[in-house]
Every structure is written in structure tokens, then in C-alpha cells.
């Protein structure tokens, strides 16, 4: 669904053009190079988490974005795949199994679960599907604390990845080795999922999403098409689960519960469901928010909640949708027109947000800090929350920023229209 694929010429040629392959080459290059930029183990751990979330979100988007199926229980397929992989790690035969093939077990498990559940849940789309996924999700999450043999109760089950057969001499002791394993699977899964969306089945999923009746008239069983997408999504979710098992060596109830299912919906939507690479952006941004922002402020989830509500209200096509809005401007070569209006609007908008966040933080500190601890540090400045100055500064920032943003926003919209409309003359 990117601009590339919509270009009829690219498809007519049939072969792989450089333009089609370019994003993948860049992606592979980034996967290879990033650990040299961020060498600390924690950065690599966070990147591993990102990669797993990316696969999971892409798989979720096969349902939501490409198939029009809203699921509240997608964590089930990832979790089941992961649980099976940890069990495999604890088998005796694991010693003769190279670790990199382990995620396939997870994928198959996810697929089997999707086969079973999909057989009755994909009969209808819409609310029926959503509610069945919610019910099944709750049931399996509840089972996870009851059936201790398989799920290990709330402690979960753990394994040791290093007991596997060494692969090309690597035992996967260090984070960086695991990173490349996950990176490899990230690339392969993303590519496979992209190719799936180009197959006739993938295309039919779009048709069924948009108008199931017409698809039926064309002779396709919309149920069958949904079922196919569902099973494929289950497979890739299981792969993500297997990678989770490798990275953390433990799976618990949280991998199956509603919170995980709900957050992957938010991740995917934040990134943008309409574009293939949308969930990738969503996963990166969300993981950063969750792990990095929570180191900086206690009320990070307040900001995340506000971000989601704002995204839905103002950018329903997600972050990727916002990026894609600018594609025409680049094609027409008029993107320079946008720079000045953007600076004029975004800088005050950022100041406004800083102001609001500042006031919220001061309020929070004033309410919750210890008696006598009036000093606080915000945006690298240390001040006293009882003095009036910071309040005024942040209030002024917020109000003035808001006022300027409102003033300049229409100009930005106008500039954007101008930049994305072809010139009369040039046509």
C-alpha cells in the first residue's frame, strides 16, 4: 500500500526494481549498523524489544489494517508461541537444535492456535469478530493461571537459550548475538509479511475489508479470505513470541493478557494502519516511550494516554499517515515551501506542550514530594516549586505557544495544500 506498489509501472515490469528494493536494503543496513552506534547492552536490549514489537505489530496489522478485523486477543498467539518455545528450550532434544530455528516452533504453535480459533471466529467480521477475540483472549489469559502444567502459573516458565546447539560457533551468551538473531528474523518476517500483502490472497483481504459483499459476488468466500489472513497473522505473532522467549528466556501470564493485546492495538494505530511500515514506526515510538520516558518521569502513562487521544483526534491515519501526506510534496519537488510554515507552527506548538507538561510536572511534584523537598529538576533546570516564577514561565510558554500555533496553523494548511497541488503551468 505504499506509493511504490501503487505505481502501475513498477508492477507491470514484474521484476524487482531498485525503487522497490531500496527500503529493504536500507532497513537491512540499519539493522546491521545500529549496534555499532548504540553499544550499551541496555540499548541493545531495548532494540531487541523494539524488533519483537515490530513483528508483533506488523502481524496485528495483517488483521486490522489489511483485513479489517479488529482483534482484542492477539496476544494469545504470540504468547502461546512463546510458551511453546520455552518448553522446547527445556526439552532434552534442545541440545541438538540450533537456536535460530526455534522461532519456527513458535510460529507453528501460533498458527495452530489461529487455525482452531479462526475456524469459528472469522465467520463474521466487525463486532462479532472483535467480541469473540475478546472472549477467547480473556479465557486463555485466565487459563494461564489455572493450568500450571503448561503456563507455570503467575511465575511463568523459564528456560536457558544457551543450552541449544551452538550455531556457527555462537552460543548466544551475549545480547549482541541475540540482537542479530532477532534482526535476521525481523527482516525475514517483515519481508514475508510484505510479500503476503502483495499476493492475491493479501489483495483479496483488502477487498473483503472494504466491501465483503462485492468480494462475494466476485466468487470469493469472504470468510475463507479472512481465515487465511488470520492464520498467517497467527504464524507471525508466534514467531514474535519465539523471539520473546529467546530474548527474555521467560514467559509469564502478562504475555497473554488483555493489557498486552490492548497495547499492540494502540501501537499499531499510533503508527498508522493504512501503510505497511506504519506499525514499525508505532512500535519504535511506543517502546521508546515505555522504556525511556518512564525513566524520566513518573507520570509517563498520563502523557502516553494524552498522546493516543490526540493522535486519534487529529491524525487518525497515525504517524505513518502524517508522513505519507507529504509524499506528494516531495514528488512535486515543492517540499521547501513547507519548511518555514512548519517552523512557524511546530516550534510554538512544542513550546506550548513543554509549558503544559511543565505545569503538570510542577503540580505533581507539589502534591507528591516529601515535605521540605521543594526543589525539583525539570528540563535540566533546577528550581523551587513554591516560587511563583516557574509557574509563570510555563504558563506563559503554554499560552503564548498555543496562541501562536492557532495563528499560524491555517498558514501551514494553506502551504501544505499549495505544496501538494501540481502547478497549473507545469501540467
Amino acid at each position, binding site marked *: 500500500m505504499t506509493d511504490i506498489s501503487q505505481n502501475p509501472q513498477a508492477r507491470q515490469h514484474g521484476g524487482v526494481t531498485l525503487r522497490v528494493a531500496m527500503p529493504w536494503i536500507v532497513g537491512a543496513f540499519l539493522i546491521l549498523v545500529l549496534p555499532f552506534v548504540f553499544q550499551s547492552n541496555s540499548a541493545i*536490549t531495548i532494540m531487541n524489544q523494539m524488533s519483537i514489537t515490530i513483528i508483533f505489530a506488523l502481524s496485528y496489522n495483517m488483521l486490522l489494517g489489511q483485513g479489517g478485523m479488529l482483534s482484542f486477543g492477539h496476544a494469545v498467539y504470540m504468547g502461546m508461541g512463546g510458551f511453546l518455545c520455552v518448553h522446547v528450550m527445556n526439552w532434552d532434544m534442545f541440545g541438538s537444535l540450533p537456536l535460530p530455528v526455534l522461532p519456527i516452533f513458535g510460529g507453528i504453535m501460533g498458527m495452530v492456535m489461529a487455525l482452531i480459533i479462526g475456524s469459528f471466529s472469522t465467520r463474521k467480521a466487525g463486532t462479532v469478530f472483535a467480541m469473540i477475540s475478546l472472549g477467547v483472549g480473556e479465557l486463555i489469559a*485466565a487459563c494461564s*493461571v489455572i493450568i500450571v502444567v503448561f503456563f507455570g502459573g503467575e511465575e511463568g516458565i523459564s528456560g536457558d537459550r544457551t543450552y541449544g546447539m551452538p550455531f556457527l560457533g555462537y552460543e548466544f551468551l*551475549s545480547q549482541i548475538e541475540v540482537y542479530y538473531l532477532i534482526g535476521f528474523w525481523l527482516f525475514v518476517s517483515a519481508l514475508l509479511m510484505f510479500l503476503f500483502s502483495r499476493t492475491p490472497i493479501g489483495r483479496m483481504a483488502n477487498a473483503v475489508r472494504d466491501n465483503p459483499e462485492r468480494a462475494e459476488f466476485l466468487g470469493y468466500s469472504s470468510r475463507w479470505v479472512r481465515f487465511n489472513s488470520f492464520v498467517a497473522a497467527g504464524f507471525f505473532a508466534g514467531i514474535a513470541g519465539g523471539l520473546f522467549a529467546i530474548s527474555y528466556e521467560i514467559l509469564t501470564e502478562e504475555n497473554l493478557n488483555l493489557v498486552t493485546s490492548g497495547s499492540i492495538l494502540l501501537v499499531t494505530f499510533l503508527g498508522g494502519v493504512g501503510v505497511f511500515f506504519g506499525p*514499525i514506526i508505532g512500535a519504535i515510538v511506543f517502546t521508546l516511550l515505555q522504556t*525511556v520516558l518512564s525513566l524520566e518521569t513518573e507520570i509517563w502513562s498520563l502523557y502516553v494516554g494524552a498522546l493516543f487521544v490526540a493522535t486519534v483526534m487529529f491524525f487518525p491515519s497515525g504517524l505513518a499517515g502524517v508522513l505519507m501526506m507529504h509524499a506528494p510534496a516531495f514528488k512535486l519537488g515543492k517540499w521547501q515551501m513547507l519548511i518555514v510554515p512548519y517552523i512557524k507552527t511546530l516550534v510554538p506548538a512544542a513550546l506550548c506542550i513543554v509549558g503544559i507538561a511543565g505545569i503538570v510536572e510542577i503540580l505533581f511534584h507539589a502534591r507528591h514530594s516529601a515535605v521540605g523537598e521543594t526543589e525539583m529538576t525539570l528540563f535540566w533546570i533546577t528550581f523551587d516549586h513554591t516560587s511563583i516564577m516557574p509557574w509563570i514561565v510555563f504558563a506563559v510558554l503554554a499560552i503564548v505557544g498555543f496562541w501562536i500555533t492557532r495563528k499560524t496553523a491555517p498558514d501551514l494548511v494553506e502551504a501544505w495544500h499549495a505544496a501538494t497541488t501540481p502547478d497549473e503551468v507545469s501540467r
Partner: protein
Amino acid sequence: MKKFVKLSAAAMLSMALGATAVAAENIKIAFIDPLSGPFASTGINGLHQYQFAAEAMVNEKGGVLDGQNFEIVPFDNKISPKESLIQLQVAIDQGIRYIAQGNSSGVANALTDAIDKHNRRNPDSRVLFLNYAAVDPALTNDKCNFWHFRFDANADIKMDALTDVIAADQDIKKVYIIGQDYSFGKAVAAAAVKFLGEKRSDIEIVGNELHPIGKVKDFTPYSRKIVASGADAIITGNWGADMLGLGKSVIENGFDGPIFTYYAAGSGMTAAFGDSAKGRVRLISQGEINPIGSEEARQIYNAFKAKYPDGNIDQSRIFNVIGMLAKAIEQAGTADDVVAVAKQLEGMEYDSMWGGKLFMRPQDHQLIQNMHVGVHTDENIEFDYDNSGFGILTESTVEMASMDSATTCKMRRPE
């Protein structure tokens, strides 16, 4: 575009993680517990106790070794095992060698497992795990390792002490056991059955059941069953909303015997129980608050209340953690070699300001200490919880509880 996003993400990453190179000579302790989400209040209150203990017991007295201070670095694990492992990695990268965690045995299990693996795979950056509240017996039995130290009594020890008190009360003939359906709830139930059978075989266990954890909205049906069973006492390991819901519901529906609990105080619960649970809710814990153990403890508590008027010292063992760690570092003469520090902690005897002696049992790293059973009341309370006027008054004490209890731990020590 993708590249741009990745690059800016990368910039954020390096800002957040890179700028944390070890600056001062402080000895850092990573506090990995929930600071947001449903258990945030417990986590934040614990953090305050850690910070206060580090200030009052170490830093204001000139620090340890040659004037090194303790610094508590908070990490929010959102009570998720996955997040805990990520934050553990971040903490290790920041050069932190001491990890403190307590809320949820599930998280503790994940952490102790991960720390064991990390220490095996990375001998240069080994860390110690100071578990101050996770009480799953397995942590000092089958799953024990050299790096894990538990400063709270485990569920079995607590139940041993609790059943001593129950066994002494001849009015109790029938007991109802109810708990949350997970490892800890099951451990409590199993221990209760075992100890009651040993100590008072005439006590009839009229009910022994589990309910889903954190999912029960209304405990009325359970209360009806308990009342119908004719039980004289209830034993429960419930915590949080499940404890409050169960306690309020059984009292409201006409149960009039004692309720023996593990976690029915603090975090707003004492205030919410209020008058209705007076003289009814009994609590097993270490560390006496009423009457307070020593003059030093009284001063510390008053200073804590002056600093955090809304806080409670409901986990006084946190002060023992800091005190014992400081002593071990002094004796080892280093804070960087955690093996040396751990060897000092093993077998350490320590006089707690909350009263009594502490002994870190070397064979399983379980702290042995006096256990107290207290009652929820507003009489003779010097230090209340939640500013409600109600608090826990010690009724009976078991000295050095379970000193000789068996352990299945086979500790493997580094050379």
C-alpha cells in the same frame, strides 16, 4: 522518512542512556518496582523508605568505606517481568551492582533467574539481588542462588508463626482458608494445612479454596460460604484490593471471628478498614511498630513522618536491608566486588533497631528474625497507618521464627 525516525529515536536513546556514566563515588542501589499502575502506591512508598533509610542510616553518618554515600536509583517495572528485565539491563549498564525488588514473587522469580544467568555470562559486571518482600518459598529453596538474599520471612515461616498463635487459642475449632489462585495463594494454603495438622490436629479445616486473583468484584458469595461453614477464624494470604474486598465483605455479612492475614495494613487499606475491622484483622509481620522497638526507631519514624506525612513505614525491613548492606560493604572493604560483599552478608548477625536479632542463614540466604502477630486497632497506637488513627498493635511474638526449618536449597558458590 523511516531513517529519519530511526535516527531521532536513536538520538533519544543515547540521550537517555548515554548520559548516565558513573559520575560520583556513590554506591548505587537500583530500586526496580512498580512506580506507575495499580501497585504504584506500594512501590512509591517503598522507594521513599529506601531513600530515607539510605539518608538516615548511611549518608548522614558519613557514608561507608571512605565516605561513599548510598544512592537509590528508581526504575519503574510496571510490575511486569518483561519490563523488569529491561530495567535490570539498564541498571547494570549504569554500573549499578545492587538490585532491590520486592513486589510480586513473579517478578522476583524472573529477576533472580536473569541475574543468575547474567552473573554466569558476565563475570565482570556481577550484581546482587536484595529481595525485601517477595515471599515465595521457592526463592530460597529450589530456585535459590548465591546472588539472591531475602530480607523478609518467606510464606512458610510466616505461616509457621501464625499457626503458633492460632494453635494457642483454644476457642478456635474451625478454620477457613481462602486465597488468590496463584503460586503464593497456594503456598499459603498448603503451609496452613501442614502446620495446623502438626500443631492442632483437632482443628477442622472447614474450607480451603482459591479465587481468581484481582478479578473478583464482589466477595459476597465467598463470605456467605464462610459464614455458612461456621468457621471460627479465617486465614488468607490476600493482598491489595482482594484483601480489602474480602475483609470488608466477611465483616459486613456477619462473620465475627478473627481474620489472620499477611498483608492487611498500609497503602490506604488500614484507613479503608477503619472501625469495622477493629480487633478482628490480625497480621503477621516482622518489625514491631507498636510498641516501637527502640528510641532510635522512634526518632527515625518521626523523622520519616515529618518528611512524608502521607507515607507509612510499613516495610521496616527496608531499614534492615540498608543497615546490613552497609555493614557487609564495610567488612568486605569494597563495594565493587559483590562476591566479597555477598560472602559477608552470608551468616551475618545484625541487631535491628526495630528490636531483635537478625541472622542471614548461609545455606539458603533467608533472613531469620522475630515474627510478630499484631491486631488492627486504635488503642495504644503510637504510629498509625494512613493517618487513620488505626494501626497494628503487637499481640504476640515468635522469636527467631523457623530458625532450624529445612531447606531444599543447594547453593552453588563462585570460587
